[in-house]
């Protein structure tokens, strides 16, 4: 259970956001391998390919063209294959109802996307570190709920 690094995946159609997230991940204490996807279809193709390692933690932008974050979430939760993968959904804005609904559908983490880089780093650090505790201490991932 104690690996030295974590496998992260990120799906976001915005190139700048992909860059910010990648930079933020690089500065974390936990070492990570990051796979990037431009949209939901690219993501699902990667995940559905059994040759690819399943990420420990997936960051999913809610608003994406072609296939939305919510559609991806539903597809992922429908498959037993991804039961150990934690999912963090993020969005710039959503109603309380939508946020709660995202958790109900199966997201572990909901992030309100911060505007500045330092805040983003702090948020990502908390998500990855908390996920790391679940990963290394045998905690029940089904109870892993975090809202930032």
């Amino acid at each position, binding site marked *: *259970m*104690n690996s030295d690094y974590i496998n992260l995946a990120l799906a976001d159609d915005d190139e700048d956001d992909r860059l910010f997230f990648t930079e933020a991940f690089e500065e974390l204490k936990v070492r990570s391998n990051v796979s990037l996807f431009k949209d939901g279809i690219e993501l699902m193709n990667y995940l559905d390919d059994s040759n690819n390692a399943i990420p420990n933690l997936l960051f999913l932008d809610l608003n994406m063209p072609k296939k939305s974050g919510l559609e991806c979430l539903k597809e992922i939760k429908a498959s037993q294959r991804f039961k150990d993968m934690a999912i963090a959904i993020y969005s710039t804005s959503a109603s309380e109802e939508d946020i709660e609904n995202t958790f109900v*559908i199966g997201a572990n983490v909901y992030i309100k996307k911060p505007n500045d880089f330092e805040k983003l780093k702090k948020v990502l650090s908390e998500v990855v570190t908390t996920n*790391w*505790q679940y990963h*290394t201490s045998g905690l029940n991932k089904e109870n892993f*709920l975090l*809202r*930032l």
Partner: protein
Amino acid sequence: MKLLLKFDFTKVCNAVLEQRLEAHQLKYQQTAFGEIELLDKVSEEKLDTFYNDINDFGIDVVKDPKKIVIQKIKDVIVDMVFNEKDINVKTSVYLAEKLNENYSYLSNLFSEVTYTSIENFIILQKIEYTKILLTKEELSLTEIAFKLNYSSVAHLSRQFKNTTGITPSAFQRIIAKRKQIN
């Protein structure tokens, strides 16, 4: 037919371990939770087969000396929280005594290896236990606060929200709704 199960983790872990040790015909003595002494000399090959076997059940052998200490710290904390031990001293004193080490050594090592502090880890365990008590045992937050020695319900509620970002009632609501759709 749906069955809702509750797990006594210590019992489950020990049962699996015992079963696998016997399957590999290894004579052993259990010295503590997560600690066994193999009584006979065993070949590297036989050990590797055994390690691979228990690995399938999610059991890993800890070899790194730093990680051994970390695991011990975690075990003491989990035991303290989940077995509702009434500790009359500060946790730092309790841990130092239990592990026979200087607390700042334990604290620094823990942060270095786990990327979080002992204090945070303890809070995380308490909140995890709270979640289980809320959903599986259906205890009220007041009952849980009392069980886990919180100074008040408000204190537990606040810590729950600080740790997870959601309130205990929102958590219960979400888990209940999840069960409905599955």
